[in-house]
């Protein structure tokens, strides 16, 4: 486990505070069904945040995640129901595409911002070509899988914990996870130690692709139908989740469990605003302000502690 100190727990404190606020505003939320409703929307975002986290661990950023998730949603609603095999093939192809993107970015030293922004339009375009307007039907087994309601603990809570555990395990508990994070921190050192840096990029992007697929599948379970624009907001929201969760932009510094907590925080902020009757018009602006505030506080903390920037 990474060093446990006060600051690592921030996203979790945030989460608890928000839960308390929600319960205060709406006491009936403190129930099995309440938690179910509150957190079910956090599951797809948690997958997406974990995907974004893998990319940020590489020192890059993924602006195509939103439309990627939308494309998965479209495939799930249109193809999966009729041709399971082809749908699976497409999912695998999409993961391979992410691996290739990662190799391209590494090999040609391209800026991930623009490459993923370009990719975002490819995903969106393909999604629109397949499904110009919302339609389709998500298979029942998908809906049931993600709407699982076990006794005592609501399904979403279990899923969130699982996602956090998996992300944490892969990056923080395996040795290769350390190599992956190292490649984002000091790629030359990793190369000198005998590891293939290209392989680390391929794997990080591949993992992001896998979690992107999972995000799309779980989102489909909620929407039950397909829309190319579903998930479009996930780009900024996933970045927010990773940052609130403690991740930073310099490569290698990520907090997988924090990213999941961050996803829950983001969703709950929306819920709180809704309960406070804040018009949905303001919600997106509020998200921007929160992102700024989080980074501003971090900047102040850095300034105060006078910490030397590590190159």
């Amino acid at each position, binding site marked *: 486990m990474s060093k446990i100190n006060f600051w690592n727990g921030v996203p979790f404190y945030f989460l608890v505070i928000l839960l308390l606020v929600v319960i205060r505003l709406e006491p009936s939320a403190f129930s099995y069904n309440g938690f179910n409703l509150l957190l079910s929307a956090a599951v797809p975002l948690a997958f997406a945040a974990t995907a974004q986290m893998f990319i940020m661990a590489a020192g890059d*950023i993924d*602006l195509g995640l939103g439309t990627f998730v939308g494309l998965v949603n479209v495939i799930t609603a249109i193809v999966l129901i009729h041709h399971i095999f082809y749908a699976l093939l497409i999912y695998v192809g999409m993961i391979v595409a992410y691996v290739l993107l990662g190799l*391209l970015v590494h090999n*040609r*030293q*391209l*800026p991930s*911002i*623009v*490459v993923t*922004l*370009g*990719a*975002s*339009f*490819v*995903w*969106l*375009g*393909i*999604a*629109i*070509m*397949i499904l*110009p307007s919302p339609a389709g039907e998500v298979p029942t087994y998908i809906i049931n899988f993600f709407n699982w309601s076990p006794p005592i603990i609501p399904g979403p809570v279990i899923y969130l914990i699982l996602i956090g555990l998996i992300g944490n395990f892969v990056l923080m508990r395996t040795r290769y996870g350390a190599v992956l994070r190292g490649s984002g921190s000091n790629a030359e050192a990793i190369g000198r130690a005998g590891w293939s840096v290209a392989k680390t990029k391929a794997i990080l992007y591949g993992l992001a692709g896998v979690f992107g697929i999972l995000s799309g599948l779980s989102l489909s379970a909620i929407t039950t139908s397909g829309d*190319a624009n579903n998930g479009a907001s996930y780009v*900024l929201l996933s*970045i927010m989740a990773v*940052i609130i969760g403690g991740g930073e*932009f310099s490569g290698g510094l990520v907090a997988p469990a924090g990213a999941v907590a961050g996803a829950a925080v983001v969703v709950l902020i929306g819920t709180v605003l809704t309960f406070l009757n804040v*018009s949905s*018009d*303001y*919600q*997106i*602006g*509020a*998200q*921007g*302000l929160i*992102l*700024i505030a989080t*980074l*501003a506080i971090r*900047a102040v903390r850095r300034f105060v502690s006078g910490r030397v920037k590590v190159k």
Partner: protein
Amino acid sequence: MSTTSDSKVTLGSKVLNIFRTQRALPAFVGSVIIWLLTAAIAGRGLTGTLTSSIAIGTFLFFVGIGQMFVITSGNGGIDLSVPYVMTVSAYITASVMHGQNVKLISGLLAALAVGIVVGLLNVFLIEIIAMPPIIATLSVGFILQSATLVLSTKSSGIPSPRIFINLATGNVGPIPNMAIFGIIVGIIFTLILTRSSYGRAIQGIGQSRSAARLAGLKSQRLTIYAYLISSLFAAFTGFLLAGYAGGPSLTMGGNYQLGSIAVVVLGGSLIAGGLSNVPGIWAAALLLTLLITLVNVAHLGAGAQDVVQGVLIVLVLTVGGTKRQKD
């Protein structure tokens, strides 16, 4: 006269010149190809397509110029707030002008004010709070989006002043006003980039921040101006676009986020900064606009346009970057 070093030098200057000035060439060639393809498939209206595309492409061209200055400044510079600034400016200016011809200038001033405020805000977040430009400009954009949603409920359905609509959509003979306006602005900014000290300096800091510092160039101030130029262009274009379309709308920003970056890249400017040109942006804006027409005419559906745009960008980046010096 030493022959080998001299001939190496002239060859070198020739190569560099071609490298620099002709980086815009692919965009022009691409436009011609797409234009011919469109005409071939549609079987009609060669010149009409061209002039209207130039006119419509002018809006993309304008925000592209602004984005170019930000990207040129290097250091990860990028402005993702463009579509949101456009939209909020369209609504603010609409409500300032309230459809009255006489208030046209006030509308313009309001647009400039929006541009300055947003530009300063972006710069503050990037330079003082040290937020990465992607996040800073995206966050500002989202705040503006909320502002737009609120404004739109209050000032919905206000048409643009009649004189404005006439100016924006009018023609001088067969040539649309917008096309002429675009070319004039293009020439001005080409001169600014190539012949002003600012244009020279901003390309310097994009090549190497450390060299620029030691050479006495004031990077921070130059970057501030770059973000201001970008926001001003975005605000002005939003104002202008509302005039062209007859009024503001919530979805008007649509394609301009990727679009503004795409035209810079496709136009031959380096995404890492330090090497840019304006004519390429004009040609790339025309190319992307013609692409929309081509996709429609070939009945390829809305998605195809996005896919082609995305693939083009990745392709141009992959192929067109400068060789990195491995040491």
